[in-house]
């Protein structure tokens, strides 16, 4: 166990320490009522056809507007928290709804107030867990296993067994060069990539190495904490985050390269809520960095890739952070590649189903979302769908196999085009 952890692990996710449900309910309603009226009173529901979960359930209770209406219903005594909380698991936290909401898109800048449905859903999940409602046993096990393995239990979705924390950097073992520990530039490798899609961190290490960018790994990398927050366990998220921040401090990190959108949004959205900005290093999303290196002529594509592809915008980058230009620029620069683009606004309505713990709690619906995404790519008559998010790539690859469509990772494709796999 790391001696850097400044807090002890919170009690197991389903442990004691629950608060009375009415108390949790009152606090929740107080905190969200104004936002809820902002949605409930307008009632236009422009979020609905954008929502990936609604698109496969077509059930109005799994929509952002329903999530807000419930808060008003509780306030008016028409329901209690425990009557409606379960619905809040039907969300991938992709953020498409709150972006598409006219309250954000059309007047959010004028009033400097916008719809925040992602936060509403996360807070309801946390409230339900705090009240001990026991609605989501798989999330509970997932977070418990994360506490044991210090990383998410990505190797066993079925039984949710912890990973071995000592193997978090095993992916780097057979690289032709050594990666040091610590240093000013740290490569943070997400749980899914470190344990499951190990081809991705290898590709990223090769790219950085080839570009002559010095970098190291953390002494002991833990999960970023984002999924724990998304599953309604903010204390556990903070516990993991504190460790990582301490590790970076020990490493002397000034810059952290991030290869996964879910980590990236944890670092730029959640960490600043826990720590003062000056305690945090700069976070650099690898795709942006590759585009920059390309501009500066520090990397070059030497190997043509003769394929027709389309691109999947990772939700957290496109919908929540507005980052969609760099990956398109990279794809257009790869020789031999025919890139059929679906614009990023159309993709506000696209998702892989993998985010926000959705695939852990609702695997069947998550599969339907992935199937739909692959079917949309198939309509373009392409040979492959390129993504830039390792979490999306597992379900998309699986649906792609069924529908005969290859799924590629953008950074892996970059390494290939740079001739680093030869």
């Amino acid at each position, binding site marked *: 166990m790391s001696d850097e952890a400044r807090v002890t692990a919170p009690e197991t996710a389903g442990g004691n320490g629950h608060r009375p449900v009415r108390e949790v309910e009152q606090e929740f309603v107080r905190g969200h009522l104004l936002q809820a009226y902002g949605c409930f009173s307008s009632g236009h529901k*422009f979020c*609905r056809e954008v929502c990936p979960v609604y698109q496969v359930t077509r059930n109005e209770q799994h929509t952002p507007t329903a999530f807000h*209406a419930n808060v008003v219903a509780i306030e008016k005594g028409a329901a209690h928290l425990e009557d409606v909380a379960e619905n809040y698991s039907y969300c991938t936290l992709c953020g498409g709804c709150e972006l598409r909401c006219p309250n954000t898109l059309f*007047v959010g800048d004028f009033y400097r107030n916008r719809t925040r449905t992602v936060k509403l859903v996360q807070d309801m999940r946390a409230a339900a867990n705090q009240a001990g409602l026991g609605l989501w046993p798989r999330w509970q096990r997932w977070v418990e296993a994360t506490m044991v393995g210090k990383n998410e239990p990505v190797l066993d979705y079925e039984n949710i067994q912890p990973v071995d924390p000592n193997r978090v950097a095993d992916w780097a073992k057979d690289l032709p060069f050594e990666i040091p520990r610590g240093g000013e530039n740290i490569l943070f490798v997400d749980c899914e990539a470190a344990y499951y899609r190990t081809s991705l961190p290898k590709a990223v290490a090769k790219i950085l190495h080839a570009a002559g960018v010095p970098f190291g790994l953390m002494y002991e990398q833990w999960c970023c904490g984002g999924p724990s927050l998304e599953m309604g366990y903010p204390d556990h998220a903070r516990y993991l985050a504190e460790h990582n921040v301490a590790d970076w401090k020990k490493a002397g990190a000034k810059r952290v390269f991030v290869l996964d959108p879910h980590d990236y949004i944890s670092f730029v959205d959640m960490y600043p809520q826990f720590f003062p900005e000056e305690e945090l290093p700069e976070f650099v999303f690898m795709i942006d960095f590759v585009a920059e290196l390309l501009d500066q002529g520090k990397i070059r594509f030497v190997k043509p890739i003769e394929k027709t592809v389309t691109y999947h915008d990772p939700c957290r980058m496109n919908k929540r952070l507005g980052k969609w230009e760099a990956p398109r620029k990279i794809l257009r620069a790869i020789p031999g590649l025919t890139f059929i683009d679906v614009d990023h606004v159309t993709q506000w309505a696209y998702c892989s189903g993998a985010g926000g713990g959705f695939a852990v709690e609702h695997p069947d619906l998550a599969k339907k979302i992935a199937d739909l995404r692959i079917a949309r790519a198939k*309509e373009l008559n392409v040979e492959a769908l390129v993504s830039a998010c390792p979490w999306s790539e597992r379900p998309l690859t699986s649906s792609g196999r069924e529908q005969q469509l290859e799924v590629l990772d953008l950074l892996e494709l970059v390494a290939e085009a740079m001739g680093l796999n030869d």
Partner: protein
Amino acid sequence: MATLTLPNPVTDKVIAELEAALGKDKVRTDLGARIARTRVPAPFPVHRFAEYMPDVVVLPETAEEVSAILRIANQYRVPVVPRAGGTGLADGAVPLHKGILLDIKKMNKIIELDLINRTVTVQPGLNMLKLNEFLAPYGVFYPDDPASYPVSIIGGRIGTSGWSLIGSRYGHTRDLVISLQVVLPTGEIVRLSDGGGAPKVRKASTGYNLKQLFIGTQGTLGVVTEATLELFPKPEAELAAFFGYESFDEAYRSTGALSTSGLGTLAAVILFDERKVEYLRRDDEAYIPLPERIKAVVATALYGVEEEVRAAANRLFRIAKETGGEYLGDELSAGDWASRHDRYATPLHGRLPDGTVVPMSWHCEDAAIIYSELPAIKQKWHEITDRYIRQYGIFDNWGMFFYSNNPYKGWGDYLVEIDIGIWEQALNEETWQAWVNLKREITRATLEHQGSISACHGACREGDAEFIPVEMHEGGFELMKKIKRLLDPNNILNPSKNYLHLAYVDEEGAP
């Protein structure tokens, strides 16, 4: 007071039969399912939230399942309220007597695209934006464009006889539906077209034109389960031009000149009054910089083949200029036109009398009024609204729009809209009743000026509905009641909407 037979409640036996017919996963009694289908965007008596919650929600996927639901409801005489997108502005989908909420959103399949005969046949739960994304690669387009375009669905458009922002070029919902499959309240499934039964024929003189009878019924006569729709070529070119005027009267005359211009590509003429412009200057970034001398605005849009649009733009500009219009620029024109779905429904437009921002619900009055009466209606509606604002302080006047209201032409009657904000969080029974009275006064003014209570939302709400018998006093309402009784003998389908509970009162000789 007439004695009404109240509908029966939903019992466990009814639910068991629904589950047997549909499967358990399509029958939901949990509060989450019911709360989500309680209101529509129209102002809602939130202090009486629970009164409008349905007892059970059903999610059918086929006409046969809809038929099974209606047969069960008929047997047990429990109400069924059809719900499509739930974006209507007149409460058509709000349950007045609880009962079974029939949500059609799962019925969203595209059944057949016929590019030879230019039709697409769909289930009614499909959204228009999604349909057009599907159609785009084929170069065709379904031009039904309400403000709720990104989310509302075809079944609801048919149920309300919707109005389209570009209807003056392409027609409105009723003009775009070629034929329908409908499940009657007693469970029979029928195919209806423009006379006769040929599903893709647009114009026939065979038999009665029964299709139109089922458009705009607010789900009181049947449930649409399939529709064959008209396809147009996707427009080559779009041009939006907004003009400013120094007085409303000038803008009103210009509206008349533009809408009678005879331009075939003219899709919309929209007049904004002084209060609307004032309101937009309050919080719409496009209008904030407009100089004070601009008091009224006329918006126009052209769609069609590029050569036609370019030629029409010249004529349009000349008419606007000659009638006192000043072009408001490319950015405002194109940007505000593309904002047409979103711009007017954001709750933070709401202001208390001291200017403080609060989230308000949006009431959109939608009477149909002939051109000659527009100035008088404008004056009356504002006078009524301002009086209530002064008295109660929880309403906000967002000004008026006058939209060209007719298919394939700009002239005739106009969809007249006054937008009023309502601070729902502060509602109680007294202020709710005040709101209903405000509505009643507006409706009376409409009828005094030979208008119709609703151009497109429907007249289902309190404050509207009780005036349907007044508007239709020359025998129309009597005929409506007979038709309702004939098709729905047990009054199960969306009971009490359109004031049709009266259809079952006089039959029994009550009171």
